[in-house]
């Protein structure tokens, strides 16, 4: 019973991650993609936790929840700032 439950959690998170990855690829606008990537990061953290890898989940959370979106959005802002001026 417990194993079936574990499997169900694993399958649910796997499908979530696969869906988030697909959505991230299909979101062509980089700023909006950053939001989806952030959700992909959260999904990965969940998947790692149900795969009993809290260490990896923690580093994925640390990197994916604020630092990567910040870098992407700052880049997007820089790119757009110049576009607007022209």
């Amino acid at each position, binding site marked *: 019973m417990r194993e079936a439950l574990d499997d169900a959690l694993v399958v649910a998170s796997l499908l979530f991650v696969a869906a988030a990855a697909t959505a991230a690829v299909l979101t062509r606008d980089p700023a909006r993609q950053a939001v989806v990537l952030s959700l992909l990061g959260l999904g990965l953290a969940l998947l790692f936790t149900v795969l009993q*890898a*809290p*260490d990896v*989940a*923690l*580093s994925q*959370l*640390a*990197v994916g929840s*604020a*630092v990567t979106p*910040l*870098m992407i959005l*700052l*880049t997007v*802002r*820089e790119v757009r*700032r*110049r576009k607007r*001026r022209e």
Partner: protein
Amino acid sequence: MTRRARLWVLTAGLLGTAALFAAACLRMPPFGGTWHPYGDRAVQAALLQRTANTVSSVNFDQRAFDTLGEESILFAAVLGTVVLLRRTSGERRVTPQPASVPPAVRRYAIAVLPLALLIGLYVVAHGQLSPGGGFQGGVVVATALHLLYVGVDYRALERVRPVGLYELADGVGEGAYVVLGAAGLLAGSAYLANILPLGTFNTLSSGGTVPLLNAAVGMEVASAVVVLLARFLAQALEIVDEKEEGRERGERRKRE
């Protein structure tokens, strides 16, 4: 190539790769199996080294050389970003305009900042005991500082962030890892050997050199992320092209 040709080449490649990978998956050991020879040995070794978190033992003791490489990658990437995002000739620094942030957000940021720093340091310090370690905690610490940017103002962040000091800490962290490894050689053992007393299982001082290497990594990561983000922030907020700036000023004057 035209877009259509590229799509054809890509599709052929993707199909080939998919077929190969799918065939490989069918020959993989079933998911969740019990046969993990290296993993079992690593667990035994970690217990012998009195390190409660086996992952930390693998990272900072058994496969510490990997982590040295990993830290060097981070170090190199930060150095590379600093070089690539430098202010070039023809670019000028300006003082960014202060942002307006709702007071509730400001209060939240200032209140949570010390707590977040504490959590980050806690994650670093308990690396050899519970999930976490230098990398994870270091990133949390660096993120915590940037609460000042998202919640308060860029200038508030600048006040707690003398970039030169963080660059120094970045170098010191990387250097400390290298030197701690060399201590093993000096003690007559191998490079990166765990030569310190192992301490009591499941306490903060257990694991010999593991907590020290962990702390070195934490220091490097925290300062590396701060330096990295500093470059991106400077590009997005501070650095402007003189030509573009001149054009803009001209337009403004015309309007006035």
